């Protein structure tokens, strides 16, 4: 019962307001620790040199890019099956952050690729499917913004994300297939096997920081969305917290 109670925007709004500072603080602390470990403590990689430090933000952001889309697909199911308003608002709140992480993953991937592979961009399976993931985010955001009727926008966006999420594995597989066909001497990412424990720890902490950050920002944004949509309703005006 307690979980479902918070699926109503009126009770989620104050809850999110209380949680945002906590997640924000967690994110900040984890980021400071992660960056310290990644930039100062972790030793230089014997093959790639200092440039490998980019993976401390590249890998976490790439994970978040995929994870947030998956999360949106989960909310899409809730939106279409249970018709909950909050789940659609969460999708809308998550999408910009997901798109941002996808863009950062691509950007850092390019900056890592130049000194390591000798090229900013390779039509590698992972990079290509990340690019397509960015297109999927952009499509969702464009669709939701273009439809003026919010109820319709919620459902249309949810359906699009659901169709997109079914396609993501197909896209990844097809791009991989295409890639093996076209690249005889393909660029291979040989990391992980010889990663020191400290590097893994720094990466995990950075991933945790990105995760907490996403929650904090999404909660904050969903609060704004709730007010924008339901600002005229009685419950908003009845709680002082909403406007203070």
């Amino acid at each position: 019962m307690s979980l479902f109670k918070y699926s109503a925007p009126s009770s989620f709004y104050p809850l999110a307001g209380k949680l945002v500072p906590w997640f924000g603080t967690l994110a900040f602390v984890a980021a400071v620790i992660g960056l310290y470990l990644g930039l100062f403590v972790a030793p230089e990689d014997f093959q790639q040199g200092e440039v490998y430090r980019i993976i401390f933000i590249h890998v976490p952001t790439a994970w978040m890019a995929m994870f947030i889309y998956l999360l949106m697909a989960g909310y899409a199911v809730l939106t279409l099956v249970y018709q909950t308003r909050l789940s659609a608002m969460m999708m809308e709140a998550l999408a910009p952050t997901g798109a941002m992480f996808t863009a950062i993953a691509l950007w850092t991937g390019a900056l890592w690729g130049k000194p390591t592979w000798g090229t900013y961009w390779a039509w590698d399976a992972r990079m290509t499917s990340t690019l397509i993931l960015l297109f999927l985010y952009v499509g969702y955001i464009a669709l939701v913004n273009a439809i003026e009727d919010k109820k319709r926008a919620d459902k249309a966006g949810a359906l699009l994300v659901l169709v997109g999420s079914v396609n993501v594995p197909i896209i990844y597989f097809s791009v991989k297939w295409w890639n093996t066909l076209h690249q005889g001497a393909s660029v291979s990412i040989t990391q992980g096997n010889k990663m020191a424990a400290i590097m893994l720890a720094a990466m995990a902490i950075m991933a945790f920081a990105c995760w907490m950050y996403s929650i904090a920002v999404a909660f904050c944004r969903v609060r704004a969305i709730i007010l924008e949509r339901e600002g005229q309703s009685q419950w908003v005006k009845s709680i002082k917290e909403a406007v203070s």
Partner: protein
Amino acid sequence: MSAVLPRANELTTPERGVWVAMRRDLRLAVRSKGELAQALAFFVIVVSLFPLAIGPESALLKRVAPGVVWVCALLAVMLTLPRIFQSDYLDGTLEQLALSRYPLPVLCAGKMIAHWLTTGVPLAITAPLLGLQFGLEGRELMVIVAGLILGTPILTMLGAIGAALVLGVRGGSILMALLVLPLYIPVLIFGAGAAEASMVGVDVTANLSLLAAMLLIGMVVTPFAAAAAVKISLD
């Protein structure tokens, strides 16, 4: 309209629903021959632009031919997508269809088939002529046609979902391109991949089977997704 709603004593089996919706859309398409020809003309013209842009060197043209033909076919299909639902939406027929005795997914399936027969099939038939211009030969042309026959219905089915989602939305056509094109990528990869495999003498069945598999999955799933999208847009 009257052709769509079943008469009182008529059977309303799903097959019949597919047939009724398909026949109606085909009739409408035949009546406006111009639209049919436009997509085809677009396809031919855009494909013909490529030699002008990249030069007449035959080895290079042959190398890019599968990709060019596939991308242009994909764009041509995309441009015709509004035809599936747009006019029915504007004149209110779509609402009647949603309320008719036939389930909406069944009617959507019929509309998809009609759309494929009036775009995908003509494109597949025209493609070999364009392939000849690029120096492709017998077997390679056959593979392109086979790929298009298997691939264009998938483009229609995925596109129908996008077309339904943007019904009545301002700037809908460019928005639809944003939604639909990323979803088209696997079809493009396997379709052009098959054509390319035939050029280098590799077995093409892998690519074509994957297209066929996607087609089968799409046939089961997309009518429901398109119907859901239509319902969302009508609410």
